[in-house]
């Protein structure tokens, strides 16, 4: 059976991958232990039965809300499936090509292969969200069998929607650079609008009229596949034939949305349509601000960096996501019905928090991803007469300047809305710049030291140590910023002075960290990344 062969082959690859480095095995063990710990805490330390009395009465509301959760999971699976095709494409192609040489029906090879891959891509849902859902359902008194059937339907749904995502990904690859960019921006605007309406609906309490509630109602109605998925639960609540029909409708729906995309993927693949089309670039030599600001080779490196960001939606989206979120939050504040309270000007800076944290961690998360996407192309730089520090600096400068502009302009904008004084704004900007300096520096250290260049998806290339450093830094920052703001009220002079000191010292720390990152990156050999 083809499924056994593929599973064995995947397992062998995985074991070899683990055996290459001790840290990978340790990482896996820690991951498994954490998952076990999570499950033990969830099901034994706070057993679902213990809260049954509390939520038993809300069973039907819980069942109703599953359609919204289903929508969320579907979104997630679609984007996972798309990333499967767009980012992991090259490694995937090679493996598929090896399998397709075998004298078997390509449909079955794709089917098995995509099941495995889509479940890996959706592992967060399966490892964390699904256990929580199961816990809630058991707590609400649903029988184990009902919950089990529902879980299976949900996993089936994840797979089916991943396939739809894969199809979208293929369509996306076929787009030219410009159309891709438009699509990426359009989908971000759409998401922003969606969140805006969602928050708007929540803030206004006027649930009956908003568009979002209409959407939610349709989702939970009898014609919605997302409700069909929950039919086993409804059946337990209310033993009606309607729900048996809906169950079969759900299965049929899933089979159809699995079969059609699968057929399309196989056809597209065999037609050779997994390759981007030939595309011509108008090349002109332009002199711009980059030439004015930077010397060679930084000039060339940054020019290339900007071109790549503009053509790689993955990088663009990771850079622009904080902007979108910031705009949504600001818009939500600006349009909320409450008048801002001027006496509370200083405290209102708390609202700045998520935005400032986002702005300050963007370089830290972006720099390693952008270095990881280089993979074997690092050889270009290691074989060239530039200093590796310059390469890292170019990776650093783009998100750094971006974060500075973004963070400072948002601070100014908010200070106008809230009507705070200039001194306060200055302090916030000083602290912001200091934090961005340090996190950007940390980003380069991570990029130099804790990246696994052989990971198929550059977004997940951080090693265990790297992820820990990111995590700890975010944790500390989310304390530092509010702490200084609160202390500002009680010890203004101390804070002003220390903000200035932090501001100055952070530049030195940043340069030191970039040097550290470069020192580590220098040690790489081609066998580490090719």
């Amino acid at each position: 059976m083809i499924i056994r062969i593929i599973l064995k082959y995947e397992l062998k690859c995985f074991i070899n991958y683990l055996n290459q480095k001790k840290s990978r095995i340790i990482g896996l063990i820690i991951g498994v232990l954490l998952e076990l710990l999570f499950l033990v805490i969830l099901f034994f330390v706070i057993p679902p039965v213990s809260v049954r009395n509390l939520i038993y009465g809300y069973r039907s509301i819980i069942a109703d809300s599953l359609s919204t959760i289903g929508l969320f999971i579907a979104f997630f699976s679609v984007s996972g499936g798309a990333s499967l095709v767009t980012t992991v494409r090259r490694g995937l192609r090679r493996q598929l090509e090896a399998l397709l040489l075998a004298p078997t029906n390509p449909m079955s090879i794709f089917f098995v292969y995509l099941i495995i891959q889509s479940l890996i891509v959706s592992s967060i849902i399966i490892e964390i969200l699904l256990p929580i859902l199961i816990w809630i359902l058991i707590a609400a008194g649903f029988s184990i069998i009902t919950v089990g059937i529902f879980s299976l339907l949900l996993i089936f749904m994840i797979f089916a929607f991943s396939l739809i995502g894969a199809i979208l990904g293929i369509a996306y690859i076929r787009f030219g650079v410009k159309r891709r960019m438009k699509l990426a921006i359009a989908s971000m605007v759409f998401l922003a609008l969606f969140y805006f309406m969602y928050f708007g609906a929540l803030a206004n309490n006027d649930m009956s009229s908003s568009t979002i509630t209409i959407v939610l109602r349709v989702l939970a109605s009898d014609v919605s596949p997302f409700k069909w998925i929950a039919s086993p639960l409804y059946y337990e609540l209310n033993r009606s034939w309607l729900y048996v029909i809906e169950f079969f409708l759900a299965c049929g729906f899933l089979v159809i949305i699995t079969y059609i995309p699968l057929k399309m993927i196989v056809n597209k693949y065999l037609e050779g349509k997994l390759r981007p089309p030939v595309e011509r670039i108008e090349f002109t030599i332009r002199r711009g601000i980059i030439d004015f600001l930077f010397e060679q080779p930084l000039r060339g490196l940054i020019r290339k960096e900007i071109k790549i960001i503009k053509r790689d939606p993955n990088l663009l989206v990771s850079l622009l996501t904080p902007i979108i979120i910031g705009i949504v939050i600001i818009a939500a504040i600006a349009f909320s019905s409450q008048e801002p309270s001027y006496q509370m000007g200083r405290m209102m800076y708390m609202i700045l928090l998520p935005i400032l944290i986002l702005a300050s961690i963007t370089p830290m998360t972006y720099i390693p991803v952008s270095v990881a996407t280089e993979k074997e192309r690092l050889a270009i730089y290691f074989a060239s007469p530039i200093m590796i520090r310059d390469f890292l600096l170019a990776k650093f400068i783009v998100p750094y300047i971006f974060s500075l502009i973004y963070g400072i302009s948002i601070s100014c904008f908010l200070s106008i809305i809230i009507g705070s004084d200039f001194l306060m704004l200055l302090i916030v900007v000083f602290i912001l710049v200091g934090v961005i300096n340090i996190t950007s520096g940390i980003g380069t250290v991570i990029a130099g030291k804790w990246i696994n260049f052989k990971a198929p998806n550059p977004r997940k290339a951080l090693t265990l140590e790297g992820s820990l450093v990111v995590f700890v830094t975010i944790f500390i920052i989310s304390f530092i910023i509010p702490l200084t703001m609160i202390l500002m009220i009680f010890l203004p002079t101390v804070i002003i002075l220390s903000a200035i000191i932090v501001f100055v010292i952070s530049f030195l720390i940043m340069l030191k960290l970039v040097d550290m990152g470069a020192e580590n990156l220098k040690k790489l050999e081609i066998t580490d990344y090719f």
Partner: protein
Amino acid sequence: MGILIITESFIYEKKGAELAIIFNDVTKIYDSKIALQNFSMRVNPGEIVGLLGPNGSGKTTALRIAVGLLKPSKGDVIIMGHSITHNPEEAKKYIGYVPDEPPLYENLAGIEYLQLILELWGYDIADKMNEIDELARILDMQLELNDLISSYSAGMRRKIALMAALIHDPKVLIIDEITANLDPKALASLAILLRGLKEHNVAILISTHILEIAEELSDRVVILHAGEIIWTGNPKEFRKEVSESKRLEDIFFELTGGPEVEQIINYLRRYTK
């Protein structure tokens, strides 16, 4: 060290020319596997040296060490008087390197990639447009230069990598698998080009599996086997002195082993059932 001093003085006497590439007792060990052992060799300016050897004999390893992509476990490589391990930025200025599988940016057009390479070497592309055009004509790439590299065929990828190696006027040219994916015309053009560069004192180190190419192109051939040099010499002179009939292929097979004819016959038996 002694050898180095002797070779150095030797080269010095020879028209006072500088040394282009010196492999000085280079050893490379991966984990526990020895890929290259006590490899010592030099290439003079205006000389073409061909590196031969069976699969896995260490050719790519040697070339990667020479351009600084791998760090030697022992020994050093000197490029135009600069150590690749101690003074890499200076040494790499002189090297044009064409890897066997060139790493390229899928989302850049060929010309944009060349611009990047030029800027890494400190040039301005505006001063190099003529040369790019000429090279593109030589390699039949004029039409494709503005296409995104993602649409290139394997041969076009090699050609753009060749252009990138040549465009910054290297004094040392290192090409891995010189014949890989190139069409006959491109290969012939490349051979003529290399001979011309040699006349202009460029030191050229190539690796190949095609013995005729090595014989025709190189002044000296070095045969590697299991990480060690087992034969080195000038194929043409060798033929004159030893025997007209002996081809490089014969030497190669004598040293590294020829085809396993008996095994092949044995294997083919299953078809005669």
